């Protein structure tokens, strides 16, 4: 079975600064996908970034990047140049299943201070 742990219930960062959200996971599979999703106050769930486990290169999407440490089973999200619109709940998730059943972390609430 897979598990995902987000140990930071809440994080805050000053606007324009950089923040890193932590995520660790556990799986016995060698092939899997990892995700970060963002859920703003509107409650819509939005994909931020995806990482394939077989790829050693860390995924990046504009101001969002991940630090994927496969051996340590760690998948942190770095947000650079934080903006007010980045304020949201951030969820880390993993799937090893061909039917794409995601296992979700409990989420981290990110607060952006103006």
């Amino acid at each position, binding site marked *: 079975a897979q598990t995902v742990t987000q140990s930071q219930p809440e994080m805050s960062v000053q606007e324009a600064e950089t923040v890193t959200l932590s995520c660790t996971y556990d799986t016995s599979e060698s092939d899997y*996908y990892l995700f970060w999703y963002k859920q703003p106050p509107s409650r*819509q769930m939005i*994909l931020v970034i995806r990482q394939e486990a077989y790829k050693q290169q860390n995924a990046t999407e504009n101001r969002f990047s991940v630090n994927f440490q496969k051996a340590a089973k760690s998948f942190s999200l770095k947000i650079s140049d934080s903006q007010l619109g980045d304020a949201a709940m951030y969820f880390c998730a993993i799937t090893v299943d061909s*039917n*794409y059943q995601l296992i979700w972390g409990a989420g981290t609430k990110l607060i952006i201070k103006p």
Partner: protein
Amino acid sequence: SQTIHQWPATLVQPVGSPLSLECTVEGTSNPNLYWYRQAAGRGLQLLFYSVGIGQISSEVPQNLSASRPQDRQFILSSKKLLLSDSGFYLCAWRPPNSPLHFGNGTRLTVT
């Protein structure tokens, strides 16, 4: 383009009443479809997923059921709502070789 529609956005229902939430996907065929529930301040819990018409897998035994009467339609139902059914319900679908895409969600309050 491919889009997902979920309705209603908000619903207030009394205990013991029935429930029907609908989700449809446009612009694709034979998608994998999913129903998730999110309790306040919590992560997502997978309720049901479907890989085809009439094919429903249940992840959590509970007061809810799901049906897929058409290829791009996924319905979440209950015959009698409980207070514990309150929450935020999200429908999602997955294009081939792509991550999940979510609907806008339904906030259900059972009174």
